[in-house]
């Protein structure tokens, strides 16, 4: 059964879209990842224009992060003060990203930017996951310890920065510039790639800011909720790239998939699944890279034309 997507201006098989949403939702629940970094490239493979895939994805991430942040708020694991600073930077980054998106769209480089961005990020994320999973349990602990031992005390440059702020919940007294800059980088990624950016923000909050681990996830989800919401709003207003029909279809199944995935997560052995997810991520990256490197079937392409 085909359904017409009004903004993407194409019809797709409804079961294909529902299947994608369900599988990615399941994986995101299983691994506790946002799923945006898988969904956007998969939508592109299905034939959704990359711009619409990215814009729609930012709206979809709102849904998954809202339910996450609510759960963390109930447990008191959110540093609102830190979240506000991260969000402030994120909104600025998102605005810059959406404008850059618009510029790249006009000059015809947006598809390449999205693909290239994904090849780099998926390659890095998949590579790290693979490296951490493959040697098994014996090698993993020393790696984590080595990283964790690099406490905030070593970042002397960071403490020389002005605009110091006290973050009570995180028990930190640091310059607001650092979290704002982290938030901004994440906002840029949301706008250009349609990912939540948690995979970048969480390590930065732990190792760079030195935040206590129990508030990191909740606080990052708070930032992701607001920044993806603002990005969705901007993408819809400036680039007209949010397809609400596609977003709702994906949402309907993804939220269920995520809940089922979260329930399964405790029952299945993580080690093997982690390797499988890493393999999947690398496969998607490889497929995108192949398209960039191989000689295209037709070197010519038609861009978005304006109606005179």
């Amino acid at each position, binding site marked *: 059964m*085909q359904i017409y997507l009004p903004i993407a201006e194409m*019809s797709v098989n409804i079961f294909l879209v529902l299947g994608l949403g369900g599988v990615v939702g399941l994986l995101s629940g299983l691994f506790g990842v946002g799923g945006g970094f898988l969904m956007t490239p998969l939508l592109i493979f299905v034939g959704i224009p990359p711009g619409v895939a990215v814009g729609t994805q930012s709206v979809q991430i*709102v849904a*998954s992060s809202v339910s996450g942040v609510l759960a963390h708020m109930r447990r008191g694991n959110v540093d609102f003060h830190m979240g506000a600073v991260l969000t402030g930077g994120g909104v600025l980054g998102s605005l810059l990203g959406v404008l850059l998106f618009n510029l790249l769209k006009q000059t015809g480089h947006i598809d390449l930017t999205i693909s290239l961005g994904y090849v780099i990020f998926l390659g890095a994320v998949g590579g790290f996951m693979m490296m951490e999973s493959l040697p098994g349990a014996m090698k993993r602990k020393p790696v984590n310890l080595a990283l964790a031992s690099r406490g905030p005390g070593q970042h002397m440059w960071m403490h020389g920065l002005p605009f110091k702020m006290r973050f009570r919940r995180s028990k930190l007294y640091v310059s607001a510039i650092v979290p704002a800059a982290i938030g901004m980088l994440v906002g840029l990624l949301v706008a250009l790639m349609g990912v939540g950016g948690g995979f970048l923000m969480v390590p930065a909050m732990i190792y760079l800011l030195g935040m206590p681990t129990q508030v990191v996830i909740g606080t990052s989800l708070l930032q992701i909720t607001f920044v993806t919401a603002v990005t969705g709003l901007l993408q*819809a207003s400036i680039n007209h790239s949010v397809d*609400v029909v596609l977003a709702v279809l994906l949402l309907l199944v993804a939220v269920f998939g995520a809940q089922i995935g979260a329930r399964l997560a405790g029952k299945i052995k993580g080690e093997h699944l982690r390797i499988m997810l890493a393999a999947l991520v690398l496969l998607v990256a490889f497929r995108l890279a192949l398209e960039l*490197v191989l000689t295209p079937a037709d070197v010519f392409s*038609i*861009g978005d034309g304006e109606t005179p």
Partner: protein
Amino acid sequence: MKRRFFLAALVIMASSTVKAQDVPLVADLSNHLVAITTGFTGTDVLLFGATDGPGDIAVVVRGPATDVPVRRKERFGPIWVNGSSVDFVEVPSYYRVASNKPLEDIAPQLLLSRFQIGLENIRMTPDQEELDAELVQEFREAVVRLKLNEDLYDEGLGAVNLMSNRLFRTELHFPAHVPTGTYLVEVYLFRNGQITSAEIVPLTISKIGVGAEIYDFAYNWAPFYGLISVLLAAAAGWAASAAFRRI
């Protein structure tokens, strides 16, 4: 009105008691409005008509004109990057030509070119002057080739069926991703390599129903559309977590 005309023509011809009348060519479409609904997967529209005697028929369908930026990928290190580009102004977004026999057997090239009949006769003007003619030609061919692949351009030589040299019909295909707007279906009657008569039938392709309303809202009220989309997503996320907390 046109349909009645056609019926009248049919009746006249069927009885064949009356001689050829004043109008040498009549044509009409089975449908004047193609509605793109949520389940739209493309459609065929039947063009039919009658002539007052032997002749050749060429049918040209033109979609709304748009500016078309064409880009050529070039190697940049290991990857392919969009390099040089040519912007053509007012190129038909959709173009379909059908005739009862090859165009060169119907009319001289000069005439076909003047009326832009045939894929190689579509006028494409670059927006900047002083471009290398060979380069423009290469980009022009690329537009035709890409549009052919997308099924937005087509050349159906022999696709027009002529019956008893009087009645003709042809199917016009519109794919799922057909651009919206006002289309012009031009029907030409050729005799001895000259245009004897021509008729233009308009055809409207528009989005109808929920999809159309969403599209209009998304473009005319973009910030509100964005806000509603985001709120919808937030509500769905909240509802899901609330629902699953109880189970």
